[in-house]
């Protein structure tokens, strides 16, 4: 009897211990810093809840790691010399109050006075020189600034001078002007090179920026991260700009269904996620940039890349026939519910319409036309000789092209099914498959694929980024980020480089070069533009008003990385609490 009682007490104690442990562990989840953090609930009317950027725990505050840093690290904390408004194609002086080319090879930027870091120290030209010099580290994510021809950077007074040895890559340099976050020398000088190029720099006490927000709480959390508005942001005094939310809470991207439910319930104010079927929710409470089709602003082009080293995709006649056989409208309506739009045959984003040479497009462009596709195939020598409904190669061998997108990207998975189905109408056999992302990257880089969809290059200040993506030479063993199709055209690449070396002020020269590039592109079709992916954004108006809109408030409704320093920050200055 005593034995069994002891046993039972033992188990009982075990239970008590286990439960106590669980409760203690769960409550201690906040980590060591929890006790000091402000524990009170944030006031709803002063808080903006955002989601759609962070797919992992909030642990990286390195502004140079612009594919992974915590939502808002650049834009809300660290700022750039300029901002860029892609809707108006205008550079906005930011930490620099002005900047201009003095002579062909020298760029002089004047730093704004009265800007202070959040620890009270003044922002100076020396901070800029320090930041730019650190980009010399070869593994720095923005190291290629130093391949634009830049030779040295000097700071004197409030001026920063960029001296170029050769003719500068103007277009690329302009792009860097609004993409390099400036960090405080007095703090960052203590970091070693490894920390600067790839550290997570997440000691929040050392998070000092020039921007309107500072750290509130949430480092290492897998649920939320909170920014707190700070006093004394320079733009309030200098430009009359004031960010309205006192707190910004960014919410980890979890399940799509929960995220949508929280948006509809007003627990999330703005979601920058791709939400299938959002077009059916748009009304007075849930809104998007456009009231109707296409709802979203275009953010990038989804391209179909043919592997030009493989038969029959090495034949431009075949590629053109393929382009004519793809029913993009069906993808736009059936797959996306009209929240995207069909791409221009040049693939250039609508913001670059002024650069599109319409007569070139008219002459060499393409559109969905099965009869035309069939005629082109026949003319080029691709016939269906065995009567299976699909054309064969010129040597009589079967054609069966595989088309790949990453597994789990459901909208793209549907898109390639539609492509395969619609190409069938012209007699081209395409088989969709869905490898995992790393496998796809590996195969794509090493040219082990037939057809792949990609959309890496985003909206920017220059179509040069697009042509660099399509035409860049030389072709390496592994094409990690550009020219996946392994298309070699030295003329086109020379023109792309010439475009890079044309200052944006010389619009006439830009247009001439661009129309030649368009002609080569449309004649050879090394990539097939499909549709414009949107700057996904939907918001709930129950707490905040004054959202971006195609009518009036034309700024980017995005908290995404690299978008805040375009016009995303302006969205925050124009919001109004719904109550007032």
């Amino acid at each position, binding site marked *: 009897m005593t034995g069994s009682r002891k046993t039972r007490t033992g*188990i009982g104690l075990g239970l008590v211990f286990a439960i106590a442990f669980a409760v203690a562990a769960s*409550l201690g989840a906040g980590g060591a810093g929890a006790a000091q953090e402000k524990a*009170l609930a*944030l006031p709803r009317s002063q808080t903006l809840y955002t989601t759609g950027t962070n797919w992992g725990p909030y642990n990286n505050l390195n502004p140079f790691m612009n594919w992974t840093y915590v939502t808002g690290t650049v834009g809300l904390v660290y700022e750039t010399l300029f901002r860029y408004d892609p809707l108006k194609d205008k550079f906005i002086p930011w930490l620099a109050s002005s900047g201009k080319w003095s002579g062909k090879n020298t760029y002089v930027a004047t730093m704004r006075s009265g800007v202070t870091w959040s620890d009270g120290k003044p922002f100076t030209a020396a901070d800029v020189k320090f930041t730019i010099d650190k980009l010399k580290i070869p593994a720095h994510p923005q190291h290629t600034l130093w391949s634009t021809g830049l030779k040295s950077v000097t700071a004197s007074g409030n001026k920063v001078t960029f001296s170029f040895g050769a003719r500068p890559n103007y277009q690329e340099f302009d792009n860097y002007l609004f993409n390099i976050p400036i960090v405080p020398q007095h703090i960052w000088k203590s970091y070693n090179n490894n920390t600067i190029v*790839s550290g997570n720099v997440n000691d929040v006490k050392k998070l000092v920026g020039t921007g309107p927000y500072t750290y509130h709480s949430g480092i*290492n959390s897998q*649920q939320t991260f909170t920014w707190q508005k700070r006093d004394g942001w320079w733009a309030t005094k200098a430009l009359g700009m004031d960010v309205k939310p006192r707190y910004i*809470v960014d919410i980890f991207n979890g399940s799509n269904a929960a995220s949508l439910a929280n948006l509809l319930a007003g627990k999330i104010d703005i979601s920058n996620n791709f939400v299938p079927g959002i077009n059916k929710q748009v009304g007075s409470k849930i809104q998007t940039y456009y009231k109707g089709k296409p709802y979203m602003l275009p953010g990038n082009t989804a391209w179909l890349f043919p592997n030009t080293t493989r038969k029959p995709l090495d034949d431009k006649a075949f590629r053109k026939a393929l382009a004519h056989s793809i029913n993009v409208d069906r993808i736009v309506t059936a797959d996306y519910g009209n929240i995207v739009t069909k791409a221009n045959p040049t693939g250039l984003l609508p913001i670059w319409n002024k650069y599109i040479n319409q007569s070139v497009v008219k002459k060499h462009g393409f559109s969905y036309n099965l009869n035309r596709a069939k005629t082109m195939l026949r003319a080029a020598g691709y016939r269906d000789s065995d009567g299976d409904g699909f054309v064969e190669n010129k040597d009589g061998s079967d054609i069966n092209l595989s088309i790949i997108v990453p597994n789990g990207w459901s909208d793209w998975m549907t898109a390639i099914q539609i492509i395969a189905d619609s190409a069938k109408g012209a007699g081209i056999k395409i088989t969709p498959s869905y490898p995992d992302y790393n496998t796809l990257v590996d195969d794509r880089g090493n040219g082990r694929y037939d057809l792949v969809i990609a959309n890496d290059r985003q909206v920017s200040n220059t179509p040069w980024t697009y042509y660099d993506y399509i035409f860049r030479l030389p072709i390496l063993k592994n094409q990690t*980020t550009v020219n996946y199709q392994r298309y070699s055209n030295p003329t086109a690449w020379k023109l792309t480089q010439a475009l890079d070396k044309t200052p944006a002020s010389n619009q006439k020269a830009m247009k001439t070069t661009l129309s030649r590039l368009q002609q080569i592109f449309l004649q050879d079709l090394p990539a097939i533009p499909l549709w414009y992916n949107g700057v996904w954004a939907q918001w709930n108006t129950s707490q905040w008003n004054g959202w971006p809109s195609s009518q009036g408030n034309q700024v980017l409704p995005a908290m995404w990385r690299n978008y805040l320093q375009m016009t995303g920050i302006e969205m925050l200055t124009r919001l109004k609490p719904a109550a007032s």
Partner: protein
Amino acid sequence: MRRYFARKLLTYVVTFFVAVSIDWAIPRFMPGDPVQGLISRMQAQPEAAEALEGYYTEAFGLDVPLWKQYLNFWVALFQGDLGRSIWQFPEPVSSLILHAVPYTLALLVPAIVLSFWAGNKVGALAARRKSLDDTVLPVGYVLTATPQMWLGIVLAYLFGSVWGIFPISGAYDYSLQPAWTLEFAASFLYHWFLPFSALFLVAFGGWAIGMRNMIIYELESDYAHYLESLGAPRRLVRKYAYRNAMLPQITGLALALGAVIGGALVIEVVFTYPGLGTMTLTAIQNRDYFLLQGIFLFIIVGVLIANFIVDCAYVLVDPRTRTGMQGHR
């Protein structure tokens, strides 16, 4: 006793060694190069890509021969270093796991312990009363046959979306931060209830049915009949039956641990609960092999420890094993 534990321990060490080796090998023999994936996400210019590739290959320790990577892995493991996450580079895997684990334990431990306790109690009761048996049996079968994830979705839909009684995502309100306050604790419990319930109910059904069947079986055994014929009170008979029925249940607990952990991982995904399950999903989506490897390692160790505890408990609960080991007669 010592021999018993020595033998058990040896089994655990071998299991640990094999499981960890497999865990190490799987990511390395998967197709695709994680460094290439990272560089692709960075959108590096080609002239920079080469420098970055070298830099990151070295940072992940992938620049040495495979056998050396394996040795390094074990050395690092005993220093508590699980490597760095690819997708969250440069965050150490151990730090990522450490921040997620409390949430998973907060779901898992109460769900296992309470469902085991309540399931056995209710199962034993059900075996005693016909009226209770008629409800416990079908309900238990339905519950135990329900996939946790599905039950989670149903609970979230009904109690969250339709009736709006409980929140459907997160571990605490978005307006709060973890802190030692009543407000946070209340919010935590409020958010904890649905995912906990989904885990608890499924496991509860299994234990209740198991216990009910065992008790009925035990009551039909010779010793029970003998006791009854001696005129022992029914309560005493049932008490003995309960103790004997407990033994297979404890063995069952050891076997069920893996399934419950798996269930907790998917439940977290349903409720966007910031624990290991949610992290596992994002690690899979981002092909973060090192993080996955770390999470699995953690689960392996967790299951082994839990099994060891169950083994110890078994010795305490079953006097036969004890006397057998100690050589008493």
